[in-house]
């Protein structure tokens, strides 16, 4: 078990190094932050001075080594756009994204799995067919359109929900949370739905297929043959066994929800990492982009580890082996 975790960590470290290299090589392709810094009317001399001052005139490997040297100390420099330490910028944005992704994930899992269970139990029923078609529409509409449509309905016509922002937040230590205020929750509704919609459909479909497969398995048949109650068969025996593949996908999806919150956060002006990164990209805020990429890679590494641990919790077969 410990050996396994260490192996995982080593793998994670390799991934991180590769990501750091890739993200660094990304810098040169993003565009030039200098214009945004000195202003577009700045003279050629002013530009050159700025480029030199940022070290952008040095050869790429030198820049990379400097970057790594700082990164291992948890230093990512200062954001060009906000002139704040990158670590603080990221730390201040992380809670918003994590809360949004978490709620969206809960929504996706909490609604998607039951819907999938229903569809798996009654694969031929009218309800299932409707559910499947309707849910597919959910993944056929680009999320920026979904967001606007939600705003049109709930902000403009009904005027129930705020169309942007995070509402009031409360500081819990260094963590700013919107989950303790009414306006925070109201602000969360639409972004969470927008972000969750795609994953919700995904989980529903996944659960349905898995459920259908498990229900055909020999041990379910044997449970039937023992006259166990339907409810126990469906939920205790079948659902549990469908959880294993769902956990894998859920882990990956949580990761990509965090990574893909870009669109949702832009549409709803949600002050999280997605909004940060999109603005960093359009500004050419290289230090922020690099740190963001590393953070996402780290998240994926961590999530993969948690997924593995969850396997152990769910599947006794794995527990015995290690």
């Amino acid at each position: 078990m410990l050996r396994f975790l260490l192996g995982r960590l080593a793998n994670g470290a390799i991934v991180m190094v590769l990501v750091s290299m890739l993200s660094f090589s990304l810098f040169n392709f993003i565009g030039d932050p200098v214009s945004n810094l000195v202003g577009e009317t700045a003279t050629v001399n002013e530009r050159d001075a700025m480029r030199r001052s940022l070290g952008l005139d040095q050869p790429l490997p030198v820049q990379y080594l400097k970057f790594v040297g700082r990164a291992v100390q948890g230093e990512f420099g200062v954001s060009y756009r906000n002139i704040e330490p990158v670590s603080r910028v990221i730390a201040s944005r992380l809670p918003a994204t994590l809360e949004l992704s978490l709620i969206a994930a809960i929504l996706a899992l909490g609604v998607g799995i039951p819907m999938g269970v229903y569809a798996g139990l009654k694969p031929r029923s009218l309800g299932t067919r409707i559910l499947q078609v309707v849910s597919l529409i959910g993944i056929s509409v680009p999320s920026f359109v979904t967001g606007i449509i939600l705003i049109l309905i709930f902000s403009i016509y009904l005027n129930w929900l705020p169309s942007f922002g995070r509402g009031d937040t409360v500081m819990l230590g260094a963590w700013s949370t919107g989950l303790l205020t009414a306006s925070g929750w109201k602000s969360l509704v639409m972004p969470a739905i927008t972000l969750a919609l795609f994953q919700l459909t995904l989980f529903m479909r996944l659960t349905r297929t898995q459920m259908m497969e498990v229900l055909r398995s020999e041990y379910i048949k044997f449970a039937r043959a023992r006259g166990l109650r339907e409810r126990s068969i469906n939920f205790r025996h079948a659902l549990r066994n469908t959880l294993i593949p769902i956990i894998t996908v859920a882990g990956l999806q949580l990761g990509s929800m965090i990574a893909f919150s870009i669109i949702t956060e832009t549409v709803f002006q949600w002050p999280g990492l997605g909004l940060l990164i999109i603005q960093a990209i359009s500004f050419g805020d290289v230090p922020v982009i690099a740190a963001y990429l590393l953070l996402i890679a780290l998240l994926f590494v961590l999530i993969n580890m948690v997924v593995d641990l969850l396997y152990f919790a769910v599947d006794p077969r794995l527990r015995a082996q290690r």
Partner: protein
Amino acid sequence: ASFTWSSNLDALSMDPHSTNNSFTNAFVSNIYESLVRFNEKLEIEPALATSWKLVSPTVWRYTLRQGVKFHNGESFGADDVVFSWQRVNTPGSLVKGNLSDLKDVRKVDAYTVEVETNSPLPTLNNELVQLLIMNKGWSEQNRAVEASDLGHQKENFANRNANGTGPFKLVSREVDTRTVLAANTGWWDKPKHNLTQVMFTPIKSDATRTSSLISGGIDASISVPLQDVPRLKSVPTLEVVQGPELRTIFMGMDQSRDELLYSDVKGKNPFKDLRVRKAVYQAIDVEALKRSVMRGASWPAGNLLSPYLHGSPVALNKRLLPFNPEASKALLKEAGYPNGFTVGMQCPNDRYVYDEALCLAMSSMLAKVGIKTNLMIEPTVKWSVRLNAADVSLYMVGHAGLPMADVYGLLKDVVATRTGKEGSLNAGKYSNPKFDAYMPRIASEIDPAKRARLIEEAVAIERDDVSHIPLHQQPVTWAARKGIALSQAPDNQMRLWLVHVNGK
């Protein structure tokens, strides 16, 4: 009254010297003040200085206002002015460039300072607007005596805290979320506003910003997408205010390379031929652009300078040549391109109002006279790299003449021959020595009438040369709840001290 407003951008920093970003400068001007300020008509009016006079051709003496207090209660005086000048000259400061004609700022006595310039400078006050005054004591206390230096990975206290003399105090700031200001009750000026608290929330997405206006989430927006104007006008509780911006949009052409980039013309550069430039000029229907792309909201330009800029030669603000595709074709034929030619067209897609759509429309217009365009539309970060590297052939660019609001800056950046110090936006490298000879004279001519004549002569040269093809002044479009009096100016700056909220 409290007031919530929005824009598509956020201020980058609260430090008045660490960035050179027009929105940031405008935002911070509600907190920090300079010796003089622009009013809503872009006229210079006294602020922290009450009067000034010329003591020698290059030295001006400013009498400072007495009894002014910073937000933290400290008194304002000559030391603060000198300190701010010094701070502007620290390595991290990015406003330095805007004040490059100043040589020194000296203290004469507690309430008098002298400003020395490199040469006689008729636009000194326009430049001084950029020298926002910080408090010496506060800066020293909080280790903010230097502007943030990105090169050395330094941040300073003034980035997220502010202590100015202006009409509003900074209460709190969350980047990209909200910045809260409160009225400075001890402000030296008699407030025209009736605001107590101001909340600024940037909203990047156009549709979301418009929705928030409609649903009442915000009181005002200073970046209203043109296409949403009819919708907003149809909301009974909202009002839309529109006016021309200082910024003129124009097309530049590569006039220096011997062979045009991204073109099928080999071995020569058609844009070096005035006839070709005129042909392009006459192929573009600015009225159609106004009607169909700009939804009626643009002011077709006769030259590169907005009539609202100080010193603008208003007489020259009419089109040089009419829209005439036939004439255009004839010119092309005359120049040796009977079948036209292909050329790359470089445009930003997130910089100006409808920049991308304008280019698409022009591409169609040019096609009609035989000029096929190879559209290269990019986000600003990339497009600006192209401009700097002069990696362009037929390109869109714009200039507002800010921060000085004077014609000189625009001419220097756009028309003057590109050198290390001038012609920074002259990516097509237009160069006319006759024009260049006018530049130092315009810069130092103190007499307004003489200066106006010089400007008119210089602009005529450039205009007849078709150095660029002016398109239009783009609109400033604001919207607000009815009953809120905003004072819109062509520099698109929200002057909170002029906002008045009725009722409540």
